[in-house]
């Protein structure tokens, strides 16, 4: 019971973190058709900027400055780099952002070194939110989840209830028409790209203080985020929320389970035979928790190639 509740909480907070990063990715793709390979690098950039700023000006300053800077970087990329390759098609946009991801990773290694940095939450956030079954549950995990939920509430309000939101949604559906109606679509695109990047930056700034902050964090999270959008269906916010939570929960449960294929065969009396094969058969679920998302993706591809909420290609 303890395991079930703790894992569910961990899974949901991790899922919300995933959604914070994948939401921007999916929003940008839905509007511009650009799959930003460097999106997870924005997440990493957010963590490192927050680390650098917070070591001089305190944690909260870092938390505010990081998304702003990352958002500006995102806008510059959208304004000055992407249009240059646009004419050569989406593959070249993908390649360009792929190169940018590499550059960001190497720049971070250049400035901060190829090892984890000591980015920590402030002591006044380091306490137990509550105690379940004798275990303290860290408040900071809830803080990550709460930040994500607050952000989405804000975004939703912006999109659904304001004039800007209407223009953005119009630009997503019919960019040419929205432009013909006198809206400045290039600025809208730049703004959305910036907000998406800032969201990833904020996620990095918040999560970096809890999870390790190192030059691999962009790639590690990036791959999972890509799995999220394939599973959820690119361009669908609902789909990526569902997939984020699904993968968050799957990962957090699998960490604590020592199930194996051999155990499964044991249920039907083939346990010894499976044990004797070894390899994949005796591999415990907990040791392959990093693999679970990819397996999930392959299953979704087989069953529903368009993703959970996606339209057919």
């Amino acid at each position, binding site marked *: 019971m303890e395991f079930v509740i703790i894992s569910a909480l961990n899974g949901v907070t991790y899922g919300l973190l995933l959604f914070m990063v994948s939401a921007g990715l999916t929003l940008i793709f839905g509007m511009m058709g650009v799959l930003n390979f460097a999106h997870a690098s924005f997440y990493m950039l957010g963590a490192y900027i927050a680390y650098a700023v917070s070591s001089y000006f305190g944690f909260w300053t870092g938390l505010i400055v990081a998304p702003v800077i990352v958002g500006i970087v995102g806008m510059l990329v959208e304004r*000055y780099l992407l249009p240059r390759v646009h004419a050569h098609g989406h593959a070249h946009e993908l390649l360009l952002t792929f*190169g940018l991801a590499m*550059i960001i990773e190497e720049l971070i290694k250049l400035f901060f070194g190829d090892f984890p940095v000591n980015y920590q939450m402030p002591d006044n956030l380091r306490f137990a939110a509550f105690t379940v079954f004798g275990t303290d549950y860290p408040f900071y995990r809830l803080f990550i989840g709460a930040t994500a939920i607050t952000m989405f509430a804000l975004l939703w309000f912006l999109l659904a209830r304001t004039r800007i939101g209407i223009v953005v949604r119009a630009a997503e559906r019919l960019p040419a028409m929205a432009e013909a109606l006198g809206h400045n679509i290039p600025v809208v695109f730049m703004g959305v790209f910036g907000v998406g990047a800032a969201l990833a930056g904020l996620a990095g700034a918040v999560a970096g203080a809890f999870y390790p902050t190192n030059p691999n964090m962009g790639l590690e999270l990036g791959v999972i985020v890509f799995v999220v959008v394939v599973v959820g269906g690119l361009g669908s916010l609902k789909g990526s929320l569902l997939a984020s939570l699904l993968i968050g929960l799957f990962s957090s449960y699998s960490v604590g389970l020592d199930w194996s294929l051999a155990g499964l065969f044991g249920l039907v009396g083939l346990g010894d035979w499976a044990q004797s094969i070894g390899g994949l058969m005796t591999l415990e679920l907990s040791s392959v928790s990093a693999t679970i998302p990819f397996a999930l993706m392959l299953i979704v*591809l087989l069953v529903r190639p368009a993703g959970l909420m996606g339209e057919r*290609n």
Partner: protein
Amino acid sequence: MTNMRNILLIAAVLVALVAVPPFLGLGWQNALVNILIASLFALAFNLLSGQAGLLSFGHAAYFGMGAFATLHLMLAIEDGLSFPTPLLPLAGAAMGLLIGVVAGFFATMRSGVYFALVTLAIAELFHSLTPHLQGFFGGESGISSMRMPWQGFVFGTVLEVYYLTLFWVVLSVMALWAYTRTPFGRLTLALRDNEQRVRFLGYNAHTSKVIIFAVSAMFSGVAGGLQAISNETANYALFSSHISAQVVLQTFVGGATIFFGPVVGAVSFTLFAYLVSDLTRSWLFYQGLIFVLVMLFAPTGIGGVVQHHLRNVRRDDWLLLAGPYALAATGGVLIAGAVIYLTETVAVLFGEEYAVQIRNAEGSLPAYEMFGAWWEPFGIATWLVPVVLLAAGGAILVKSRGNILKCWEKMGREVGEGAHEPAAPGVAK
């Protein structure tokens, strides 16, 4: 005429590849082995990503599986299996083909950017799973073996390994070249252009794409097998995203639209890595920078730019262009110098050694050594150098860009895509 020239060129390269290595040192022989393997890997990758237009970010999976399969065959030979050592890469080919069929079946269910994401995830699947599999992959430490003698060949020297590699690479490149001439090779190009129409001409697009994927994976497996033979060891790091990223970089910097373009990229990157990676730990940063610049200013890659000029410029025009081009190159060199200067400065100032020096100097910033000279962190000269280089290089580039455009206009040729000097930033409008 062009054909004859190409054949002569290829023959000359082949003769050099056979005749020169015995006179080179061990380091160079090793570097050549790596260059050959990288070239084959890039060509195999380009079959899928350049010719069929299916961008893969996870080709390390097939390269790595080829290496592991080959090592297992080597282990079996150690245990007494009689299998001719020179045929070892066949194991890599078979494994690459097998994994390619399975992975390709999944990946080609989606197209466009989804395809790229799925290939990336498949490679990460291997990367995250293999350290936990003791039997086939040897866990985190991997597996090792030894090259066993066969007939008169001992395969004890790098030179022998080099010739074995050369044989397989030349054979594979010939096969890949022949592939482009077959009906299926033409279909591959058609799929890149317009998959929907291919379907309405009676082709099963999914099956076709799976076959292309598998062939590409097969030759990647050969490259991986050759690597295994050369290194006599393999571990799960072979599946890392850096390997997948390298082949993307090399292929697109070299030029994906030309058959031998990826070789240009693979040769230059591997060669530079051999020459400078000891000197600077910023090498990967430079690689990324070069890649992004090529994507921005010469999307068809080095090969594309060269081909464009060969096709369009007759000999007379070269006289006209030589001046401005030389000028542009000078500007490019100056800016490159400034970028390298700044990067290396950052590498020193933010490096671990310097952090120790700061601590020893009790907080003040001591002078540091770079490019054989001493620099003061707050010295005027230290920061004047890059500023002057950047300003001069930028000015020259802007000027020469105008001149080059004028020359082209005079020659009545459209200033088309990929025709720009693949030079440097600062030329952008």
